């Protein structure tokens, strides 16, 4: 098991290095080159010599490889995601307050997605091609085709501006765990984020369970007299859970992207809003720092999912993949 964990960890690390190579190289292409950050600090009237001096002071005239090494040391050695020249703050200073908020929002949505999506998928598979199945598939199709921001606004229109008058925005400016102390404000954002995720998860779960249901061991279970319920929950669901854990891990980027949209609509000060603000201000180090952080979160999620799979499935931890 330990060998599997280590191998998987090194793989994640390599992937992270490739991503960092990407986020490091990207600013080389910004319009104005070194002048863009230099002007932000020195003012737009700085002459060529001052700009070059400033670049030298900040280690910008080193060769590419040395600069990349410095970048790695900065991120892994000092846990520093970069420096925003626009705000003259370190990126971590700008976003540290907002990271837990986004995490709580995404985590809540993930929990509800699993609690709703998996049973729904199993139910659809067991009642294949009935009215219930068709209705659920239809709703999932529409939800999947709807831009998330539109869904959020329609939900606002239906449940906040009219009807039960739920709060249109979660409480901000309070502790990041406000989701527990004041859950009413979080109903709409979490519901919207959950709905889109459930749409894809239940569809995937339905397909997986259907595939499992035609396997030989299911026929054996039926033949030896298991009740349909027992076949479904004991034999089918257990074998369908493997792919589901993987797909949950892989859905993390979509979850974070969804959180970005939901935060923008419901005006919830989290990582997403900071990203959009930074993008509007053309604050490149901040945007790239947040992107790197989001990638690290995703990779950690995938890593955890794979470890869980390894615990559940001996084939995976020995061979490295399901046979």
């Amino acid at each position, binding site marked *: 098991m330990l060998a599997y964990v280590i191998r998987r960890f090194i*793989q994640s690390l*390599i*992937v*992270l290095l*490739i*991503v960092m190579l*990407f*986020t490091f190289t*990207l*600013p080389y*292409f*910004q*319009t104005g080159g070194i002048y863009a950050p230099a002007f932000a600090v020195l003012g737009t009237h700085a002459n060529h010599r001052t700009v070059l001096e400033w670049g030298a002071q900040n280690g910008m005239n080193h060769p590419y490889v040395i600069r990349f090494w410095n970048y790695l040391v900065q991120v892994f050695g000092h846990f520093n995601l970069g420096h925003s020249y626009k705000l003259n703050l370190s990126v971590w200073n700008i976003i540290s307050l907002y990271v837990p908020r986004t995490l709580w929002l995404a985590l809540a949505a993930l929990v509800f997605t699993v609690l709703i999506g998996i049973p729904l998928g199993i139910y659809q598979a067991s009642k294949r091609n009935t009215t219930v199945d068709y209705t659920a598939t239809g709703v999932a*199709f*529409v939800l*999947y*085709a*709807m*831009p*998330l*921001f*539109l869904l959020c*606004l*329609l939900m*606002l*229109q239906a449940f906040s*501006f009219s009807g039960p008058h739920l709060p249109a925005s979660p409480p901000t400016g309070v502790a990041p765990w406000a989701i527990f102390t004041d859950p009413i404000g979080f109903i709409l954002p979490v519901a919207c984020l959950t709905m889109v995720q459930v749409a894809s998860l239940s569809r995937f779960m339905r397909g997986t369970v259907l595939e499992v249901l035609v396997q030989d061991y299911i026929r054996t279970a039926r033949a030896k007299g298991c009740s349909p319920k027992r076949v479904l929950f004991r034999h089918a669901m257990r074998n369908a859970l493997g792919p589901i854990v993987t797909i949950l891990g*892989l859905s*993390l*980027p*979509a979850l*974070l*992207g969804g959180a*970005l*949209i939901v935060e*923008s609509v419901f005006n919830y000060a989290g990582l997403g809003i900071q*990203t*959009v603000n*930074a*993008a*509007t201000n*053309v*604050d*490149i180090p901040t*945007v*790239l720092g*947040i*992107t790197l952080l*989001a*990638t690290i979160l*995703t*990779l950690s999620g*995938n890593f955890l999912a794979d470890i869980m799979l390894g615990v559940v499935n001996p084939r995976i931890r020995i061979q490295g993949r399901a046979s």
Partner: protein
Amino acid sequence: MSVLGEPAILANLVDPVGIVDQKGVAGDVIVPMWRQRLRIFMHNKLAIASVGYLVLILLFCYLGPVFYHTNQTNQALALDAVWNAHPSAAHLLGTDSSGFDELGRIMYGGEYSLTLGMLAGLITIIVGTIYGMVSGFIGGVVDTVMMRILDAFLSIPYLFLLISLFTIFSRSTTFLIIIIGITGWWANARIIRGDALLIKKLEYTQAATSMGASKWHIIRRHVFPNSISNIVTVATFSVADAILFLSALGFLGLGILTPQTDWGTMLQNGTAQISNGYWWEIYPLATVFILVVVAINYIGDALRDTFEVRLIER
């Protein structure tokens, strides 16, 4: 009696819904493969409806402006201009907050959304196919390295990546297409690679190798034609995804630049008016938009069923 002497029974066994031409089974006339596929596709009524709807919308967006003349370039700035006007004979779907005719605006924005979506989807599938095939077919170290690079890109949350790229590079319509195109192919490459891996192991590929065919020749003449079904299916979904991502960018204000517009930007502008009760600025467009994406996705699903060989055999 020989098997060929009982075409009807055999056809019923093989093909309970009567998809395969019975003559073909009997051996009199061989029904071409694409004809059989087409028949399975035509069997799916909802898929036909989806195709019909898409054709209708394409005609509406690209030919509509020929018949329904509206001014989509100049904002209504005059003091007596009509902003947010109710639907009337002059403006069939009212006007939006800038005074543009809403119906004409849907056509105008649709041209951009659909063109950009289709072109980006096209780039996605071309790059994804080439990458996946090369990776899967060459195998070994090359495959490992190419797949690790793919893993890296797949683990960057896509929306964050798009925002990073749009912050650094200056935006233009061409650039939008290229960025969505060259960042959307990663999942496609995975699927195509899986195909290439399978086909590599088949006898006809090995036979070709043993006769001295070059790798490029095999990719071109064997791997590509045999994975065309997956490529077409994946391409369909790519177009839908591209349209959706374009709308998300429009909402974030990073989409197409004014005076051009696309459906995402229009929905964003319309939703600002939602609490004022200006329903014509949001619901007609929202319906058209969602149905377009649903239709494309549904066609993708139907295509997958069409190419599923097991469906013919059962």
